[in-house]
């Protein structure tokens, strides 16, 4: 029996459970038709997403003053009036639908107060108090509140963003053949790291370490302005960026049976 188009897409995007993924990959190795369809799907996606990128423009500049004024209610949108259509899915419905129990997920967000997630990184502390954005905006508006000390381990499917400093290392722990590291150089201020599946991010000395579910796709954005950012996997440096430029002396460094490494400098 062949893989249906939904299965091919899910396999392409790393959305399958590890055992299901292994089963389908084994099928691809033995079925030319499905292997061809998978390759077609990959090529089609690259073409479609490449075309969509033609629409992109830089966002208009946003100042902290603009955001403060808006948050303080000086400028903003009113709630939809009685005559205006409502979208079929409200944010509250999303809240109900996205309620998840279980260890390792966003359990900390549910605590009303006093729970925070933080990254201690080379002297920079990122704090997420019980209502983190509210506290952050309050401080932004100069209504001071002490920030709680928070643990330095976060399990977050969305990702993290931190300042690189002068010398920054991202270490991918326990990554293997089924994982993919996609690295881009971007015009941004922060090192940004996301994982398509569950991952755990830990602060390290002048860096960040990350481990996650197998078959993960990690997306690392390296700021062009960062003086030095190293990427380690399998105990070795696999990429090094100096002011956004991939160092020429890092070559063939992806360890055997290691992750697929894709770099777009």
């Amino acid at each position: 029996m062949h893989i249906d188009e939904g299965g091919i897409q899910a396999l392409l995007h790393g959305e399958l459970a590890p055992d299901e993924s292994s089963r389908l990959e084994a099928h691809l190795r033995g079925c030319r038709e499905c292997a061809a369809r998978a390759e077609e799907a990959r090529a089609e996606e690259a073409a479609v997403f490449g075309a969509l990128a033609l629409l992109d423009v830089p966002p208009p500049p946003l100042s902290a003053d603009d955001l403060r004024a808006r948050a303080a209610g000086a400028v903003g949108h009113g709630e939809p009036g009685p005559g205006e259509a409502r979208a079929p899915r409200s944010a509250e419905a999303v809240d109900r639908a996205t309620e998840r129990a279980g260890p390792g997920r966003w359990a900390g967000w549910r605590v009303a107060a006093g729970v925070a997630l933080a990254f201690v990184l080379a002297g920079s502390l990122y704090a997420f108090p019980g209502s983190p954005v509210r506290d952050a905006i309050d401080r932004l508006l100069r209504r001071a509140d002490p920030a709680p000390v928070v643990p330095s381990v976060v399990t977050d499917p969305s990702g993290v963003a931190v300042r690189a400093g002068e010398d920054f290392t991202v270490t991918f722990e326990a990554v293997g053949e089924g994982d993919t590291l996609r690295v881009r150089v971007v015009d941004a201020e922060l090192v940004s790291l996301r994982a398509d599946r569950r991952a755990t991010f830990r602060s390290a000395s002048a860096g960040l370490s990350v481990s996650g579910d197998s078959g993960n796709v990690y997306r690392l954005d390296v700021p062009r302005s960062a003086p030095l950012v190293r990427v380690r996997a399998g105990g070795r440096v696999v990429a090094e960026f100096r002011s956004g430029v991939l160092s020429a002396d890092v070559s063939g460094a992806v360890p055997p049976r290691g992750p697929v490494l894709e770099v777009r400098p």
Partner: protein
Amino acid sequence: MNEGERAFEALFHAHYPRLFRYMNRLSGDPELAADVSQEAFVRLYRRPGSPEDPGAWLVTVAANLFRNARNKRARRLRLMTPARGARVEADPPPAPDAAVLAEGSRRAVREALDALPERDREILLLRAEGYRYREIADALGLNEASVGTLLARAKRAFREAHEGAGHAH
């Protein structure tokens, strides 16, 4: 900059660029995209407690704001110019330079995207931003198990619309 400001900045830097890019591609209007994206962050601030998945929450709110703005704009157009139907764009004067060719390619992509049903458009653009199936399902009210199939169909529909206009990949 204190800890709270760093935290908010980290959240903003992690989510704003992809949210703006998604809204710009969805709306074709960079100013509107910036407006609804920023407003979504303000709504996050006003919300009691934090959502479990800020990414999905933000894109849902921003998309709702966009629909409201679009519907309001459509009603205003009808009231002001009842005789006018769909938006009409004049073709630019022919000129063989790169800028015009690039604009032609952008317009072709825009038209192909606009030709898709709204749900197909949203699925395609959300996946292009790297949102996971669970986040797409939550944002659009879908069964997560159906996202792969719907995505395949959306990509096919876009490709056919784009190629049908004479812009093969």
